[in-house]
C-alpha cells in the first residue's frame, strides 16, 4: 500500500473539495482497503464519507431515500425495507459476512469492484481493467465466476454486488453530487458494460460522489418478491448467479413482473426482455423458461461458465413460479 493521508469529511462540500483535489472516497473500506493493500489501486489521500448523513427517510411519493453512508447491516434491518422491499433486505443479507455488512456502506457497495482473480494479481496477471491494453488473462483462464452477458473481448468481469441486483429490480435511482451540480441516474444505467474501456465501470464523473439511493414507492411486484443467490458455499461467497424477482397477478395472468440477475455481467442485469415476454402470460414454468431464454439469447459463455445459462434459467423459473404460487 502506498503511504496515504486519511481525512474525515466534515460535510459534503468538504468531501467534494477533497475529491476535486484527487482524494479517493472511503466508505466502509471493505473493498477499497483491500485493493490498496494489494496495490491494485493507489491513493495518496482518502476522504472518509462514511459518517456523512446516514438516514433512511420516506419520500413525498411514498418511496425511501437512503443516504449513501447507510451501512448495509442497518439497511437490511430497517423495518420499512423489510416490510415493503423484502427483496432488498434478503439481497443484503445474502452478501458478505455480518462483520463486513456492519462496515460496508450503500455507496461503497455500488462502487465495489470485480472479484476477478486476475484483476487482483497485480504482479502476475494481465488485466485490461487494471492496466488498459495489457490483455485479459481471464478470457482463457479461470472464468467460472465471469460474465456471460454484455462482456467484451477486453473484459469478462462481473459486478459482485448482491444489493445492486435488488436495487436494479426495484428501479432504484442513484443521486449524485459533483462540481457540475446534483443529478440522478437510474441504477440500471449507473454501471457500464466494458466494451473497449473496461477501466470505466460507472457513469460517475470525476469529482462526483454518490449521496443517496432512492427507492420508488412499493408496488405489488416489489412486495411479492424474492432474492435467490446461488453460490459455492452456504455463506461468504460471491454469487455464481443470483435472481431478484417480483410478480403481480390478476386472474392468473402476470400484470407486473420484475427480474434482475446477478453474476452475469459487469452490471446488475435487468431482464427487460424476459419481463416483456411474461406480462399478460400465465406464469407457468414453461412460460417463465421461455421468457428467461429470450433474455439469454445473446449469452456468450466462456470456457468455464457455460453452466451459468442452465443455472440462471432454472433459478429464475423456480423464483418466479414460487412467487406465482405465493401470490395472494
Amino acid at each position: 500500500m502506498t503511504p496515504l493521508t486519511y481525512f474525515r469529511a466534515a460535510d459534503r462540500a468538504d468531501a467534494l473539495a477533497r475529491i476535486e483535489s484527487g482524494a479517493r472516497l472511503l466508505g466502509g473500506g471493505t473493498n477499497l482497503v483491500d485493493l490498496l493493500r494489494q496495490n491494485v489501486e493507489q491513493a495518496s489521500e482518502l476522504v472518509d464519507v462514511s459518517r456523512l448523513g446516514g438516514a433512511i427517510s420516506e419520500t413525498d411519493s411514498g418511496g425511501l431515500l437512503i443516504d449513501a453512508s447507510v451501512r448495509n447491516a442497518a439497511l437490511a434491518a430497517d423495518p420499512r425495507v423489510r416490510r415493503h422491499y423484502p427483496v432488498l433486505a434478503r439481497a443484503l443479507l445474502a452478501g458478505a459476512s455480518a462483520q463486513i455488512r456492519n462496515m460496508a456502506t450503500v455507496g461503497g457497495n455500488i462502487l465495489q469492484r470485480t472479484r476477478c482473480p486476475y484483476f487482483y494479481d497485480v504482479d502476475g496477471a494481465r488485466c485490461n481493467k487494471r492496466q488498459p491494453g495489457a490483455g485479459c488473462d481471464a478470457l482463457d483462464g479461470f472464468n467460472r465466476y465471469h460474465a456471460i452477458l454484455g462482456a467484451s473481448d477486453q473484459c469478462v468481469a462481473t459486478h459482485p454486488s448482491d444489493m445492486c441486483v435488488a436495487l436494479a429490480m426495484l428501479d432504484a435511482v442513484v443521486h449524485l453530487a459533483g462540481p457540475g451540480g446534483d443529478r440522478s441516474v437510474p441504477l440500471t444505467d449507473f454501471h457500464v458494460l466494458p466494451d473497449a474501456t473496461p477501466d470505466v465501470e460507472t457513469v460517475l464523473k470525476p469529482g462526483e460522489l454518490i449521496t443517496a439511493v432512492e427507492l420508488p414507492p412499493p408496488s405489488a411486484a416489489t412486495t411479492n418478491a424474492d432474492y435467490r443467490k446461488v453460490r459455492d458455499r452456504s455463506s461468504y461467497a460471491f454469487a455464481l448467479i443470483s435472481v431478484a424477482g417480483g410478480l403481480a397477478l390478476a386472474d392468473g395472468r402476470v400484470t407486473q413482473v420484475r427480474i434482475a440477475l446477478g453474476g452475469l455481467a459487469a452490471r446488475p442485469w435487468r431482464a427487460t426482455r424476459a419481463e416483456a415476454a411474461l406480462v399478460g402470460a400465465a406464469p407457468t414454468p414453461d412460460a417463465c423458461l421461455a421468457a428467461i431464454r429470450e433474455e439469454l439469447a445473446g449469452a456468450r459463455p466462456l470456457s468455464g461458465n457455460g453452466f451459468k445459462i442452465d443455472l440462471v434459467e432454472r433459478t429464475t423459473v423456480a423464483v418466479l413460479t414460487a412467487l406465482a404460487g405465493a401470490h395472494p
Partner: protein
Amino acid sequence: MSKLQNVIVGGVRAVIGHVPASWLPGGTPDPLIDKRVSLGEQQSRIDGPDKVRGKARFAAEVPMEKLLYAAFVHSTIARGRIADIDVSAAEAAPGVALVMTYRNAPKMSVPPPIGMTNLKAAGNHTLPIMQDAEIRWNGQVVAVVLADTREQADHAATLIRVRYDAAPARTRFGEGKASAYTPESILVERNRLEKGDASKKLAQAAFKIDAVYTTPWENHNPIEPHAATIVWRDGRLIVHDATQMIHGTAGSLAKIFGLKPDDVELSSPYVGGGFGAKGLWDHQILGAAAAKLANRPVRVALSRASMHRLIGGRTQTEQRVALAADADGKLKALLHHGYGVKPLHSISDEGFTLTGRSLYASESFDIVQHYVDLDLLANSFMRAPGEAPGTFAIECAMDELAHALGMDPIELRRRNVATCDPVSGAPHSQSAIMKAYDLGAARIGWDRRIAQPGMRREGEWLIGMGCATGTFPFMRMPGTSVRITIDADGIAHVASAAHEMGMGTATVQRQHAADRLGLPLDRVTVTIGDSSLPFASFAGGSSQTASLAAAISAATGKLVTDLLRLAGNDTPLAGLKPSEVEFADGGLRSVEDPARQESLVSILRRSGRGEVSVIGESGAPLEIMKYAMHSTSANFCELRVSAVTGEIRVDRLVGAFDCGRILNAKTATSQFKGGMIMGLGMALTEETLLDERTGRIMSTSLADYHVPVHLDVPDIDVLWTDIPDPRTPLGARGIGEIGTTGVAAAIANAVFNATGKRVRDLPLTLDRLI
C-alpha cells in the same frame, strides 16, 4: 524412495515377523489400558484459558527491541532466470533497512530433507534458497524487504522491479503424465504391488467397476498464517516459530547456516493449526538470513497470498480404481493406479494408493502410482496425506460396486473386510471396523436409507445417505524423549520438545503422566514447545501422542529404579525389585502387599535430594513391522441436493472411529470433528486454482479458496469403539488425521443416493450436479 529402502524394510519385516510378540514394544499390554483414573475423562485443554484471554503468545507476537518486519517479493514466472532486479527505489523508501536478493544473500546450504533417517531435518524441498538467479516455481521469493513497520516493508516491496528471462516451464498435469516417473517406494512401502492375477480376474468377473476419480490441488489455510520472530545473538540463532517440527526445524537451520546444532534455539509453544504445513519452509530461512545481514531481529508473518505461494499444498490426483467381485460381493481383484504431482525437488509423498492395500481381502491386487514432475512449489503434507484422496477413490468405487451388485454398501464391506493385512498376512494389532459401522449406522438411522437413488424428496430437495470407510496407519516415532523430574514436594514435571497445535498435547500427556505416576492431575506439570527440552520428533503422521506416551512410559520405568535406589534399605520398600512395585497415591508401593509403601516426598527427603530426574525415550517402532496397525472409521452422511441449483447441503455427518482407546473424550471429539470438517471442505468446496498456463496459483485468499463456513458444517456426531489396542502405549492409536479420511467419499456416495448422479471429481460444486 529407493530400491535399497525396499530391501531394508522388507528384510526387517521378515525378521520381525519371526520374533515373538513378547519381545517387541507392546509385547505386554500396557497396564494403563485398564488402570485409568484421569485418562478417558473429559479434560479441558490446559492452554485454553490463556488462548481465550489472548495471553498465549504466538510466534508473530513475540516482542523485540529494534524489530524489523519482512515483506517478500514473489516471482511471476515458473521457470527461468532473473535478468535484472532493481531494488534502488525500495532501498530508498521510508523505513527500509535492507533489501535482500540473491546478490547479497548470505551463503546457505540446501535444506536437509525431512525423512525417517534424520529426525533433525525438516526440509520440504531440496532447492537452493536465494543463492542464484534461477527461478524454479511461480511464487518463489526473489527479494526480501526489511523495514521498521510492516506497512513500510509491504510498500517498499511494490517498488522492486524484476525483469526475467523466462524459460519454457512444465506446469500442465495432463501433458506431464506422459513422462511421469514411478518411484520405487512410497513412504516406507514398496510402490508397485502385484498379487494374484488382477487383470485376468477383472476380465472374467461377474461384476466390476472401472472408473477414474480426480481430486484437486488443495492449499493449507490454518487460522494462524506461518510466522517467525528471529534474532541472532552472539553467533547463535534464536527463532520464535510456529512449527510442528521443533527439532527438525532447528536442526535444519543449523545445517543451512553452518552452525552447531546447539547454536540454534527454537521455541514454538503454540501453533495456530498445523495440519502438516507448519514445518520448515523458505520463510524462516530467508528471515534468518535477512536478520543476519541486517544484524537486527526480524519478524516474518506471511500474508495469505504468500502462504499460497511459499507453503506447499496437497497435489491433485487422478486415480483409476477397478474392482471385480463375484455375485456374493467377494472381491476378486482390486486395481488402483494413479497420478499425482511430485516435483523432483519435493520431499512429501501423497501415497494415495496405500489406502486400498489394507482395507479389503481381495484375491488379487494391482496397485501402483506415478508422479508427474512439474516446475511447481514442493508439496506439503496435508492432514492424512495419501489416505484423504485415496479413500475418496476406493470408497466411491466400493459404493459403485455395491450399487452394481444390488447390495447394501455396508454389507459389501462386511463381506470383504480384511481380517489380517491382505497383502502380507500380518495380523492386526486390533481392528473392529465393522463394529464402528454398526455404531454409526445405528446413530444415523441407516435403515431409513432407500437403496434406489432419487427416491426421497422434500420440495426441491433430493435427500440421500452415504457411507464410506476411513483409514490411517498407526505410527510411533523413535527417539522422542521425555524428562520427568520429581521435586521435593512430590510434584512431577514432564518436559519434552513436543508440539501444541491445538490438539491438547500437554493436556493429554498430563493425564497420562498422572495415571502412570499415581498422582492427581494437579501434581503434574507438562512443559513442551522448546528446543532446549529433550528431543521430540515431529507432530505428524498422527504419531505424537503414541511417541510421547512410549517415552513417558520408559521414563517411568527408569524412575522406579532410581527411586528404589534412593529409598535404600530404610524403607518399607526395601528388597523389592522394580518389577515388584508400582506408583500409587503419590508414592511407590509393593504390588503384592500395598501396605508396603513410601511416598515420593518421603523418599526424596530421606535421600537428601532436592529432586530426581530421568529421561525416557520412545524406542524403534518394531511393532509396526510385525502387525498391521491402522486406525479406521465408518463415515456416514445425510444430505440434500437442490434439484433446481445443484447446491448440496449436508444435514448430518456421523463418524464412528476404531482407534484403540480414547484418552480424552473432549479433545478427541474436537480432533475428529475438525478432521471431518476438513473432509467436508475437500468434498464440497476446496480447490486451489492453479493456472496451468503460468504455474501461478490464482486462489490466494480466503475469498477465493473456499474452506467451509459455519453454515456449511452440519450436526456432527462422533462415536468410538474404545476397544484397546494391546500393542500400543495406553492402548491408543493416532486420531489426528483419520477424521479427514472417508468423509469426501461418504458425501459423494450420499449425493449419488440422493440424485442418481455419480460425480467422480472433487469438489462437488453445483455445476457438476445440474
